[in-house]
């Protein structure tokens, strides 16, 4: 504050939203007028840049051109990979290693045999009757 009024720095600060928040500008007509005057100067300075219509037109054409180029690029991108992917999948199917498949089947058989063996061992261990008596059952079975 300079006496009863804002300093020039405070007026400029206010214009950029970082001035004092004492509400002085609402009460003081002179400071209000200074703010309006400075605001008008700022607007005049801000509108000083001239851009020709020709420049803007050529820029719009360039934007449209780049959008179109990107669209074409995307279309080309979509077409090529589909074709390549189909060919790659076909090649994979044709070159699938058959021995690997047989090995899997053989592996499955081995597993079945192992299970049978473990079952026999389990039965012989868990039976209370001695293994040597098993043939004797045949003698007492009805024909």
């Amino acid at each position, binding site marked *: 504050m300079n006496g009863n009024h804002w300093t*020039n*720095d405070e007026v*400029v*600060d206010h214009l*950029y*939203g*970082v001035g004092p928040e004492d509400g002085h500008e609402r009460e003081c007509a002179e400071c209000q007028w200074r703010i309006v005057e*400075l605001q008008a*100067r*700022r607007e*005049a*300075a*801000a*509108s*000083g*840049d001239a*851009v020709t219509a020709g420049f*803007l037109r050529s*820029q*719009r054409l*360039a*934007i*449209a051109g*780049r*959008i179109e180029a*990107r669209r074409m690029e995307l279309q080309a991108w979509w077409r090529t990979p589909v074709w390549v992917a189909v060919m790659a999948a076909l090649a994979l199917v044709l070159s699938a290693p058959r021995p690997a498949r047989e090995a899997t089947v053989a592996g499955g058989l081995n597993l079945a045999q192992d299970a049978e063996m473990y079952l026999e061992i389990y039965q012989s261990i868990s039976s209370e009757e001695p293994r040597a008596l098993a043939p004797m059952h045949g003698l007492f079975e009805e024909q």
Partner: protein
Amino acid sequence: MPQAAADLLREFDSWVGREQKRVYLLCLRMLQEAEEADMAAQDCFLKAHRALTAKQNIELDDPSKWITRIAVNTCLDRLRSRSWKLWRRRPSHEDEAVILANAAEESPCAESQAFAQQISARLEAALAMLSERQRAVFLLRHYEDRKLEEIAEILDLDVGTVKAHMARAVAKLRLLLRDLYGELR
């Protein structure tokens, strides 16, 4: 005003026509190089087109604020890029001398457009001295008259941070433009 992305995409060309000058000038003030600003402005609309094409079912609260955010981010990216910094051209010593000589001259009519242009030229040189964020904050206020809250939204910052950037920017510019600033008193 909220607008559906699909509608904006449909009238994309006319939207570009409406926003193009503002976006280009913002890029020019941020980058301070006409050719670079031209490419940046084009990039902004390309990015916008790509986003609108990808998400046509969304609704944009304020397309004008949205493209401003894209523009500021595009410029910040360019400013941050090492190659851009390497090749970035500052005003030559001769140009700076001319600017300073013009500033020192007595303006025949302080209210005239010539004076405004003089301020613009000086301001442009001074803006180069600000940090990227300070410049973005200052430009959005000075040239687009946006509120600090809006600037915070555009730059994805807190209002307090924007205020701090603005205070530093104004203080720095005040110092750099002290001679011109004196004429306003």
